[in-house]
């Protein structure tokens, strides 16, 4: 094992090949998205009414995807750091409830939004502190806080759904997730403000992940926590930070949800976290940590949105959608594992 004749690895051609392969690998989830979109578009042209490919439908899909995508970006950070956040679903709905209640209370919109994001951040901070300080696995901690956040939201909502009168909802908040084209863009792509905001958030998260000190530390903790410790990474601080950022993004997702439905029903949050996790996993994130990307997660979230919309257009039953998404999750992970094993064998 000591004197294997090592091939010359320094030739420039191999560098180019590896760069190309890396590019392809990062585009994998986008490729899958393209295939899904194309598949539905063709099927819709043949057997449907051709509405799937209309710009109006694109806007609907994106507006419905945005809340999932934003929360899933936070989940991406958490999962890359080797954690998991099962409380994200109920926390997002708690944030929606906080927003609805504070609007009803007659608070100013700025205060209501700040309050909402603050509650999101606090939820994340709580998770991070409990995980970092009690040294309990994130799965267990967030399983607990998931129920706690649900309980708090229910108490706020007094056990029912919180409705908000139309005139209490500011115009910009309604338009955040509007399926109508925004008035400030005359040309394509005239998608909702909220979607633009989500793209901006994605850009910031990408910079955080790939260009920042914290990003490197996140990957290090997720790949091998003991190595990170050896290298002097402050594990507790980094974890608390990551869960808090994820919490803020959950808060943003909560605002999106409110702008879509204009009410808050805490129970709706149950199980939503699984969608966030699914988006990350379809996008190439690994639940054992150290892997994941912004582009992948965005693609993952959009794939789920496209399938839902496509199935609606084609009149395919809701139950079939569930089965399809489930199969895609398993296929995505299988493919990823296969690629990773081949890379390690090489």
């Amino acid at each position: 094992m000591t004197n294997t004749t090592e091939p010359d690895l320094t030739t420039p051609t191999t560098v180019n090949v590896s760069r190309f392969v890396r590019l392809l690998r990062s585009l994998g989830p986008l490729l899958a998205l393209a295939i899904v979109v194309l598949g539905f578009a063709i099927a819709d042209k043949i057997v449907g009414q051709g509405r799937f490919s209309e710009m109006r439908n694109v806007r609907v899909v994106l507006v419905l995807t945005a809340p999932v995508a934003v929360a899933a970006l936070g989940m991406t950070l958490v999962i890359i750091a080797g954690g998991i956040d099962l409380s994200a679903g109920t926390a997002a709905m708690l944030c929606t409830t906080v927003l609805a209640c504070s609007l009803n209370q007659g608070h100013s919109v700025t205060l209501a939004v700040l309050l909402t994001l603050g509650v999101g951040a606090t939820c994340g901070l709580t998770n991070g502190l409990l995980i970092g300080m009690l040294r309990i696995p994130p799965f267990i901690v967030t399983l607990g806080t998931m129920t706690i956040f649900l309980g708090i939201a229910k108490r706020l909502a007094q056990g029912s759904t919180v409705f908000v009168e139309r005139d209490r909802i500011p115009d910009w908040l309604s338009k955040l997730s509007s399926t109508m084209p925004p008035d400030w863009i005359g040309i394509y792509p005239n998608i909702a403000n909220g979607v633009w905001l989500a793209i901006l958030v994605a850009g910031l998260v990408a910079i955080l992940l790939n260009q920042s000190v914290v990003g490197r530390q996140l990957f290090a903790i997720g790949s091998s926590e003991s190595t990170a410790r050896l290298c002097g990474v402050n594990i507790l601080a980094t974890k608390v930070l990551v869960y808090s950022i994820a919490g803020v993004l959950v808060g943003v997702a909560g605002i999106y949800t409110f702008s879509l439905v204009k009410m808050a029903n805490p129970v709706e949050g149950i199980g939503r976290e699984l969608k966030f996790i699914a988006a990350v996993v379809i996008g190439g994130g690994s639940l054992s940590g150290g892997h994941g990307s912004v582009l992948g997660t965005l693609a993952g979230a959009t794939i789920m949105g496209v399938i839902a919309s496509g199935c609606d257009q084609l009149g395919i039953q809701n139950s079939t959608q569930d089965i399809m998404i489930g199969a895609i999750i398993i296929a995505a992970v299988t493919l990823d594992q296969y690629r990773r094993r081949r890379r390690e064998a090489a």
Partner: protein
Amino acid sequence: MSQPTTQPILSMHGIEKRFGATQALKGISLTANAGETMALIGENGAGKSTLMKILSGAHSPDAGTMMLDGQVYRPRGPHEARKVGIAMIYQELSLAPDLSVEENIMLGQERSHFGFIQKSQHQLRVRHVLSLLGHADLNPERKVGSLSIGTQQIVEIARGLASDAKVMVFDEPTSSLAAHDVQELFRLIRRLQTQGLAIVYISHFLEEIREIAHRYVVLRDGKSAGDGLLQDISNRQIVSMMVGRNVDELFPKVPHSMGETVLDVSGLSGVPMPRSVSLKLRSGEVMGLFGLIGAGRTETLRHLMGLDGPSSGSVLIRGRQGRATPQARIRDGLGMVSEDRKGEGLSQSMSIVDNLTLSDLKPYSKLGLLNLTKRRKEADRWMKTLSIKARSPLQSVSQLSGGNQQKVAIARVLHQDATILLLDEPTRGIDVGTKAEIYQWVGELAAKGKSILFVSSYLPELMAVCDTIGVMAKGRLREVRPTHDWTQSELLSVAVSTD
């Protein structure tokens, strides 16, 4: 030493084994005679374990023949190997702690009638083998977990005897034994010899080998590097055979001198180890730490680095008592290379540049954002300096060879500009060429006034590289002396000393 009869029980001839692209064994031959101990010597990765796995039926050879007791021996698996008389005694004992002595000895060779164990036959058999070993007093009903390591080893040997072993292989059997247990083990091995067993003894403690063995085979890079009678060869010659070059080439000497104390440790203790360790490390000093596995060397380094805790005692770095966290220690100039390269030393799924710079990202960060180009260039520079072979700094560390991985781990400590380096088994499992480079760097670093704490179980490298050597046993630092005041046997006897 009992007089050996020269009647080969086991002969292996022209054994070849290939794993993927790696030729692990290239035409190895060895014979083991009845009543004789054969020493199998070689560095980590030389092919000793592969050869023994072929003998024990865990691997099948690609080419070559084996004869056992005059018959062609071609085991289809470990079970068959054991049935025809091959017994393996591993470094890590393979006993079931919750079963009794008797159950362990008869495990896998139970005598039964229609599925019911014949208890009386078991008792007879166990009593017989224990008395053969001179341990008739050992209670067969005791749970093995409650016995000392030394006694557990006796049970393991008894298990081999109970299966009518003709050849017994000892794989580094003394690495976790105390001195009197080692002597007891040697008594047992001599007893086994007089019963006509052939013994294969694997160890890299040359003194031990001289005490117990008659003949030797040295393996290097999967080839036989020499064999013969131990009485005809010096230790220096054996080491040359193991490393495949002159000892002076392997251990290049870089002149350096020592200055004032930079690391002053007194009474450093943790649970369960270290126990009240005190030492002074000067600038430009290379201090070796020797000891058996479990002597507390790694624990000492980890407590120094602030990785394990809580610890008591004081650690003064240049006269200052800093906080015992890895962050603070790195700021104070400490850097550590872990013995566990895969698990802790490197983040396997991350790239070379990420691993290399992780402990010090400051030079590249502005407001928390990294200058990736600058960082990559710096990694490129270190890869050239230490001649790390890789496609690019962005290649993942898991794809590198062991030697190149270790270079990345060392490069990280150099990159963070540590002045006190804690190296834990830095040459384990890497090729001889890289070892020689590491010895050279250690010398050069000392010449630059850096201090190095060098943990190793490999005496020749400690003797060649270190200015001073300390020996640890049972969590305590027993004794520190300048290297030239130690002999290998003195080092060993302190290492196996008990309280």
